[in-house]
């Protein structure tokens, strides 16, 4: 029996008033794969993520997640599917009025978990994964930008989703913190086999996640498939959006070797 792709968009159109924000976008992301979504500001990348989550309804086309067509579903019916996806918003979107613990525990409580001891154990576990356990009692306003992203990743992954969507997870961060976030993304993807779709302006981040894997021994990134110790290559594809249209789809090598003037300018 063939396995359904984790995400499949077919001929999706989204209009904001008269303007087409996404024009005839089609893409497929295989289960366990990685897709880097690139494009300049205002080209529809964040909208595309919200379309996959069902936060924005497409005006035409279909959105399939794990073999289920989400397009005709009402908001209330989307909840079970959304819980199988984790989304990290650009600035983290942590709930200001809740502590780090309550933010991370939020999805568990919403799913009906009532055992406080089990909730605390899971929250500590996932905060440990993102190395933020020390901030468990802090409020979001007390955290730096990088720490907020890490807590947002913890919140998005606490329910063990099989698909993670990241909206510019390293935007506005310094190179060291950006590297920490990239390590976390790869760690989740490689240790938990989570399908990953991430939006980024930083081509360097995209190439890093396409060509490196997480090593539990060094707790850092190592080159994929080339170290002779059996590390699998990353199944990472790149998609470039331009004015809401798919301008390029391919591998990192194909992107790097492209002679297209726009892409050359984009990756320069």
């Amino acid at each position, binding site marked *: 029996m063939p396995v359904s792709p984790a995400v499949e968009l077919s001929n999706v159109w989204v209009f904001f008033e008269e303007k087409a924000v996404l024009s005839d976008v089609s893409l497929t992301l295989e289960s366990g794969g990685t897709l880097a979504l690139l494009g300049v500001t205002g080209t529809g990348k964040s909208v595309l993520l*919200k379309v996959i*989550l069902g*936060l924005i309804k497409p005006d035409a086309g279909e959105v399939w997640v794990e073999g289920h067509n989400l397009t005709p579903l009402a908001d209330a019916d989307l909840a079970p599917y959304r819980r199988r996806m984790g989304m990290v*918003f650009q*600035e983290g*979107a*942590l709930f200001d009025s809740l502590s780090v613990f309550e933010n991370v525990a939020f999805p568990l409580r919403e799913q009906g978990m009532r055992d406080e001891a089990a909730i605390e154990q899971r929250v500590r576990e996932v905060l440990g994964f993102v190395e933020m356990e020390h901030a468990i009692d802090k409020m979001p306003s007390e955290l730096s930008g990088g720490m907020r992203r890490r807590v947002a990743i913890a919140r998005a992954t606490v329910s063990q989703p099989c698909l993670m969507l990241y909206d510019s997870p390293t935007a506005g961060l310094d190179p060291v913190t950006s590297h920490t976030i990239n390590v976390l993304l790869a760690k989740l993807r490689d240790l938990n086999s989570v399908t990953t779709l991430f939006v980024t302006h930083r081509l360097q981040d995209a190439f890093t996640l396409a060509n490196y894997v997480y090593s539990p021994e060094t707790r850092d990134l190592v080159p994929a498939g080339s170290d002779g110790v059996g590390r699998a290559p990353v199944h990472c594809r790149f998609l470039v959006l331009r004015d809401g249209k798919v301008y390029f789809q391919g591998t990192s090598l194909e992107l790097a070797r492209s002679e297209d003037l726009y892409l050359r300018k984009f990756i320069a």
Partner: protein
Amino acid sequence: MAEGAIGGYFKRRVLAVQEFSDLMGNALRLAFTPPRYLTDLLYQMDAIGFGSLPIVLLTGFSMGSVLALQTYRTLANFGEVGLLGQAVSVSFVRELGPVLTGLMVVARNSSSIASELGSMLVSEQVDAMRALGTDPLRKLVAPRLYATLLTLPLLVILSDIVGMLGGSIVSVYTAHLSAEQYWTAAYQALDSSDVFQGLIKPVLFAPVIAVVGCYCGLHTSGGTEGVGRSTTQAVVVASVLILVLDFFITKFLIGIKFA
């Protein structure tokens, strides 16, 4: 061109009324199905009800005193100072208590609801909530609506009491009436229709106060500047709606000869 613009304006206004009614209807309906957010409801009751208490009591007391002072001058001209208790109690219970309390709660809570939800919207917290499988209508709107519905009538009762108390102090020290004279006139003037009118108004004002705040907050656009705009809009719209609604409720109750 101008016709199109005017048509577009009216379409937007009609759409806003439709969305507002939808929001109110859905939020009221959601209380009858799980999940219910009782902790959020209690938190909002504390913030909206208990939090509004000082300003409501202060306004009620002050207006009761001023009303007694002003009415005393008029009644003295006719030699009917003994009716001061009646004038204050009837005015307060039927009209001033509900409307003043409503306007104070609008100023304090419609604005804070709009700014809180507006900030959550522009910082994508509302989207994050939906992404985590939570219905913002249940989590954010319904608790605020029911908290206002449960606490506003209580605030009105307290405002009526302190308003009449303010009137009694003025009556005793300025009009030189005895406290017994004032309170007997105040009590005997009130009948069940006055109390009904005074309590039905907050029940009808409450959804307006809460849902206007929520609607303006959840329709914020334009970043932090938009949050400021939504807050102002919430206070203006809710205040005007309360005054208009008050007129029609009073007219209706007088029309059916209940008041």
